[in-house]
């Protein structure tokens, strides 16, 4: 029974990788940092990410309402956001950030706004999926090193 739950959890994670939400290498790297002292390290990092980035998202939102747009500021905010998103392995989000930064470079305000709407959707969607994943992971309990899938 327990192995079945672990397999379900592994499948959830695999689906996040396959659908491109998460970067396999980075997310796995984070999971490898978990140990008995910090069994929920990844969840803590992700929670921290969503807490910190909420402020950034708000700043970008406000900056996008200004006229004319301050592309240097937007670029700066987005670089910060991209950095943290990379750190947690958020692949789709990272790509949206890259796109946004490109639009900043060319001074394309409409492009920025459009990309940002898409980015917000990705951001919320990933949050829900990760919340669900971590909730399930807590129920399943810590994996024994012996049966941790490689």
């Amino acid at each position, binding site marked *: 029974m327990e192995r079945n739950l672990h397999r379900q959890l592994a499948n959830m994670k695999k689906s996040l990788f396959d659908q491109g939400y998460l970067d396999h290498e980075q997310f796995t790297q984070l999971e490898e940092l978990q140990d*008995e002292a910090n069994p929920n*390290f990844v969840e803590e990092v992700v929670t921290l990410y969503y807490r910190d980035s909420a402020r950034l998202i708000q700043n970008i939102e406000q900056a996008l309402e200004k006229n004319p747009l301050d592309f240097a500021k937007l670029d700066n905010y987005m670089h*910060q956001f991209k950095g943290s998103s*990379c750190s947690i392995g958020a692949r789709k989000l990272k790509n949206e950030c890259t796109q946004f930064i490109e639009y900043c470079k060319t001074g394309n305000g409409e492009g920025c706004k459009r990309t940002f709407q898409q980015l917000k959707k990705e951001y919320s969607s990933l949050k829900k999926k990760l919340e669900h994943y971590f909730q399930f992971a807590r129920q399943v309990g810590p994996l024994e090193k012996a049966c941790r899938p490689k």
Partner: protein
Amino acid sequence: MGSGSSSSSSSSGTAPNLHVLAVDDSHVDRKVIEKLLKISCCKVTAVESGRRALQYLGLDQLDGDKSPVEFDGLKVNLIMTDYSMPGMTGYELLKEIKGSSRLREIPVVIMSSENILGRIDRCMEEGAKEFLVKPVKLSDVRRLTDFILQGDEDHQKVGSRKRKLWDVPRSWFSTSCQ
């Protein structure tokens, strides 16, 4: 290298615990780098800005470089700093450290999410030990800590994957797009 205990506060008694000063304005990145270092058996002090780093190192004094007697932090064996930070960049922090006779021997590693040749060159010219492209991996940290424990000479021999970028002739890059 010591027992692979995740707790870094208690010394293993055999291998010395390196003390690393990590500087990054991103809370998320600070948390991750701290964990990477602790797992590699290092003591970690993580601060969020170049200013705070200089304060910790006893450099941020109005009348210049204070003597070690005034410095109450633990001896630092390695500094890992993010490049892009508000206020003082990692590059500026690097310059401050290399400009101090007391601190210039401490290896400084720059971390950046952007792989920009000019940036890398500038940092290496200013005396950075290494330039790591984020996200930083456990293998990067382990290589660094090994090098510090073994000494400089060994590191010269070990090829750094991250540095391959400028082993390639510069002309090759002028034709490739940004």
